[in-house]
């Protein structure tokens, strides 16, 4: 009889494949944690996963639960390594994909290059047939031209076909018929239609979604097949789950059908981790911040719930309109500001940090690999915030000469000293991150002061206390194992699917039956899907959200609805919308309210980790003190700071700033006036004086 449950999370990144393994004693609930790292092995990524299991000494045949996160989809998209796609649209609309929304975000750019469509015009074909927005057939579908279209596609080397018809969100019958016929005529080709991925309106966004999904489908399917085969060959008989962009995991079978849902799975697991951590430590309202080497990402968790949206775009920034993918993705803001972000001075003597990054090669100047650009990391080193004698956990000898030369170059262009330049870099980097945190809080109608900042990733802990002070946040939590926090989040995830369906309805008496039927129908669809994966209906939990707006508005506000929709409850629902709306926009209107669509969350627990708190050790923090050094806190001046060894911190220890906590993966900068306490899980709680 097994006395251990073994849960593993593996995360395939651009450079490394990470492993976190929790070996939990079923009797005591105590867990032993194993982490390991090995090289990512393109193009046979599954090999890296098997390697890292091996390196961590984890025998696949003993693993009960394996969660897997991969960047295979986002990489295929950004590196343009998908397959040739043919698109079939409603007659008269093949150019929708190219006309897109006609905007240019960078309107100062007279030489703007519009993002090139993933399907060139000669591979975009049309079929007669038309639905109305109510889903009524205005003109029957005529498939007679389809064989010739598919013959052309074959001749042109197309490997995947996407179908998107107007108003298929309201009635997918034509898309279904076309897809069935494609599968009959050409069974080997990867084929997908827009309604399978989303039931929301906006034809350009939906066609783009179908196209990008088709583009990555063969690659992703191949990857997932090899991964499961490789694991099975090593004796793995547990459940394999794939991390999704909606903060849940899903089965391999399901993901293989619509792999595009993996697109933002990396950040999603970290944000889910932050939500789970919040639940664990009694902090339901969390601002989550993930600072890596090239970017910082943030998301807001309210009342323990991550916000899932379908307004996701790749490659969209100030310079480009990007490409929409209408799949459920955790609501996040990402900026080009991480540890490796390069500081530069423009032609007019103004300091900027990012979005260009020194990456891993050459990396920050202090890596001594030939980098000559000053990065945020170089500034942190120069100011003593990062320990120059324990750089990257002691694995790299900091090349302070190179760092100084790089910072001096910045200082010279600004006409300031090296130290002033370093302070300026930290302040600008912090300012960029504050603005990103404002975008997910203030710009969504939330006051950051009502939230706890949870910071993770390689650089989160270094900046978190300063950002919190700026935003008026009272408390920062740095999770134990902040650098592998995403993998932990993966292990805490539920099997989860988010269903979005556009459906216009007013809230007048008599409307409830129709709305209730839509939820019921979608819930049944979810239960049927779960059932095929052996998950009993009783294990599935639903969250029903309605998307409402005042009639004539465009944008919607989501409201969580409890219990069945009845005419008697419509009034209460309307009130709940008014309240949610007022909180977000500060006012309410007497105008009629309408439903624009539903958002149904279906989730089932699939054996997630139970965390167990340890009692306070009783030892004083001084037991973890490893020295003191002078640290420049930029706006808080130069201070003599206590340096703590993160690996020696134990539950119950407490101390005050100025201080720095160091372990092999993370540096926590504690500002003067901050008070620190270690909780039973090893998380570092920083309380600000305000």
């Amino acid at each position, binding site marked *: 009889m097994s006395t251990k449950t073994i849960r593993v999370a593996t995360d395939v990144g651009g450079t490394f494949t990470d492993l976190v393994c929790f070996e939990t004693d079923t009797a005591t609930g105590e867990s032993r944690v194993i982490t390991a790292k090995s090289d990512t092995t393109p193009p046979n990524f599954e090999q890296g996963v098997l390697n890292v299991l091996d390196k961590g000494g984890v025998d696949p045949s003993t693993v009960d639960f394996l969660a897997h996160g991969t960047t295979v989809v986002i990489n295929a998209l950004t590196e343009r390594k998908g397959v040739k796609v043919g698109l079939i649209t409603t007659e008269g609309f093949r150019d929708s994909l190219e006309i897109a929304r*006609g905007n240019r975000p960078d309107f100062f750019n007279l030489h703007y290059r519009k993002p090139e469509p993933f399907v060139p015009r000669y591979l975009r074909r049309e079929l007669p047939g038309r639905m109305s927005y109510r889903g009524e057939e205005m003109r029957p579908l005529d498939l007679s031209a389809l064989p010739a279209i598919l013959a052309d596609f074959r001749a042109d080397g197309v490997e995947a076909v996407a179908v998107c018809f107007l108003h298929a969100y309201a009635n997918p019958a034509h898309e279904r018929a076309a897809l069935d016929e494609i599968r009959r005529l050409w069974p080997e080709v990867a084929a997908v239609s827009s309604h399978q991925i989303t039931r929301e309106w906006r034809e350009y966004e939906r066609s783009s979604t179908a196209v990008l999904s088709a583009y990555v489908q063969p690659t992703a399917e191949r990857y997932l097949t090899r991964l499961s085969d490789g694991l099975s060959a090593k004796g793995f008989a547990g459940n394999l789950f794939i991390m999704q962009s909606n903060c849940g995991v899903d089965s391999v079978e399901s993901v293989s059908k619509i792999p595009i849902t993996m697109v933002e799975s990396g950040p999603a697991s970290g944000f889910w981790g932050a939500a789970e951590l919040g639940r664990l430590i009694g902090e339901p309202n969390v601002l989550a911040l993930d600072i890596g080497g090239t970017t910082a990402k943030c998301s807001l968790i309210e009342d323990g719930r991550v916000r899932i949206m379908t307004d996701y775009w790749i490659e969209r920034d100030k310079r480009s309109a990007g490409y929409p993918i209408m799949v459920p993705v955790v609501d996040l803001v990402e900026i080009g500001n991480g540890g490796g972000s390069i500081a530069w001075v423009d032609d007019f003597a103004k300091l900027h940090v990012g979005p260009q990054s020194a990456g891993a090669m050459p990396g920050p100047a202090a890596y001594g690999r030939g980098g000559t650009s000053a990065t945020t990391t170089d500034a942190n080193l120069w100011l003593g915030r990062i320990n120059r004698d324990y750089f990257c956990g002691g694995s790299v000898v900091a090349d302070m000469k190179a760092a100084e030369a790089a910072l001096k170059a910045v200082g010279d262009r600004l006409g300031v000293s090296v130290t002033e330049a370093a302070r300026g870099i930290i302040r*600008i980097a912090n300012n960029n991150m504050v603005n990103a945190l404002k975008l997910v809080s203030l710009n969504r109608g939330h006051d950051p002061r009502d939230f706890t900042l949870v910071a993770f990733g390689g650089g989160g802990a270094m900046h978190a206390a300063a950002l919190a002070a700026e935003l008026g946040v009272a408390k920062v939590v740095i999770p134990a194992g902040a650098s592998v926090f995403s993998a932990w989040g993966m292990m805490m995830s539920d099997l989860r699917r988010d269903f979005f369906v556009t459906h216009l309805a007013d809230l007048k008496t008599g409307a409830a039956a129709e709305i209730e039927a839509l939820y019921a129908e979608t819930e049944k669809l979810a239960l049927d899907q779960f059932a095929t994966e052996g998950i009993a209906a009783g294990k599935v939990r639903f969250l029903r959200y309605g998307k409402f707006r005042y009639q004539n508005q465009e944008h919607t506000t989501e409201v969580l609805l409890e219990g069945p929709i009845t005419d008697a409850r419509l009034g209460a629902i309307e009130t709940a919308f008014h309240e949610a709306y007022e909180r977000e926009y500060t006012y309410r209107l007497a105008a009629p309210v309408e439903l624009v669509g539903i958002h149904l969350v279906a989730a089932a627990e699939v054996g997630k980790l139970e965390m167990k708190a340890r009692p306070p050790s009783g030892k004083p923090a001084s037991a973890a003190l490893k020295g003191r050094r002078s640290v420049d806190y930029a706006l808080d001046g130069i201070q003599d700071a206590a340096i703590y060894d993160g690996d020696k911190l134990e539950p119950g220890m407490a101390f005050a700033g100025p201080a720095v906590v160091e372990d092999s993966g993370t540096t926590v900068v504690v500002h003067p006036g901050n008070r620190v306490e270690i909780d039973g899980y090893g998380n570092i709680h920083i309380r600000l004086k305000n």
Partner: protein
Amino acid sequence: MPTSNTVLHRAGAVRTGDPAAADPVTTEVIRHALNSAANQMKRALVRTAFSPVIYEVLDFAVAIYDPEMRLLAQAPSLPMFMGTLNFCVEEAVRNVGGTENLFPGDMIMYNWPYGTGSHPQDLAVVNPVFLDDGELIGYTAIKGHWLDIAGKDPYCTDTIDVFQEGTIYPGVKIYKKGELNDDIHRMVIANSRVPKFVAGDLNAQVVGCRVGATAFREVVGRFGRAEFLNSVENMFDHGERVVRSYFEKIPDGRYVASGEMDSDGISDEPIPFEIAVEVKGSDVRIDFSNAPESRPGPVNCPVPSTISCARVAITMLAGYGEAPHEGHFRAIEVVTRPGTMFHPLPPAPCFLYGWPADQAIEVIYKAIAAALPEAVPAQSGGCICSVVWWGTREKTGEPWADGSPHPVGQGAWKGGDGGTMLHISESATRFSPIEVWEAKNPWLMDRLALRQDSGGPGEWRGGAGVDFFFRMTEDIYITTVVERTRNAPWGLSGGGFAVPNGAAVRFPDGRLVPVPKTTRLAVPKGAVLELATGGGGGYGDPKARPREAVLADLEAGYISEEFAREHYPQAF
């Protein structure tokens, strides 16, 4: 050349702080914070507005001004509205009796076209912002396009004076010390064909101004008044340097280019005009003084918009991609002559003020091309190709209205083919999804397709125009404003002309009636509005276009074989 009968316009040069005393990093933090405040205003407006013309077309301007009416920050929306709000903030404040008559919680409504630069539908809400100690630190302001403000028609191409164009609010307080002025509000409601939309949009503007005021107060409060003022001067100086450095690279000279309006909406005669760009050192002067006399029809462009189009053109060219503020405008001088199309006097009609202004931007680029052709693209379709629809819904009897610009082909430039997008004066605007449109308005779209052979040939080719075919499912009214239907978009450096815009209604009986500019045309159920937008001009000699690029265009169907053989014989 400025003479006794011309007027010279410059940006605000007054100083209220010491730029040298400012810390450059703090300046940057403050600049970001101000832009973030402006963006919060925009977001509140867009999310709460009732009209697609606001939340999709972004036909609004949100900005923050200092007490000297200098632009501190503006969120990206309609470029054409960039840097015009100072005139209306100034007028709005003056008309309510000056700053001594401003109190916390006041909101002023203002839409006199000669102060806003726009037609009466573009109504500004101006919110004076005070610190807790009662000091006025500036204004947040939002000018938004209202769907209807009780002009002779919801949208007009044939007005003969400004009084036909809508109700005028000459600077009236809609909120006094935080209290809604109900008398004015009822006037607003009474003076619109679509009162629900207008009430909703007014509310959204008020909310946006308040959101901005809170964020603005926070910025000033956080850094203190003195440091804030020093940093603002530092920020302005930086912007000024950016623009000046660009013009230092352009050879001194006077560069003249011409454009032509199809008509003024009343008579059918074309209206040629010319604009001169004078570069001297780092100063640039845009001279409109040679403009034709102001017109009897509504194509007159009031001075604030004339100045604005000069600022838009120059900031896009030389602004280094930064969000604009007053500093960017300091190197720019604008000369106008009262009584002309670009400096009309009341009560000249100005409903279509945007059309000469839009074309002026591209004419300014054409002038600059004479000095530095690689700096600018060839002409686009040259118009925003607007259609406004309205009527009464068959089933509900509810009045409705909607309007939209339409994408055109963009001009090619040295190094790039043109794409298909909205005119540069509406570049942040997103074209509406057809599925959302059909759910809202009584039509079915028959076709949304790139027009073959519509882009100008060149080493780099122009972007294609688009066919938009709207089949009406109820009887409706339309107003169309489609300019540049008579003149083909120009190419540059040997690039060819593109195909111009066109608009026509195909009636159920088969008649095809051209409607480049029409007001309140009754379009019956079953009729089709066929809007065909123009392409963009080409850049460089077509003979220099690589063979494979020509063949790819041919395979994609952007061009026909006949067109390819005519312009690109090298490919065959």
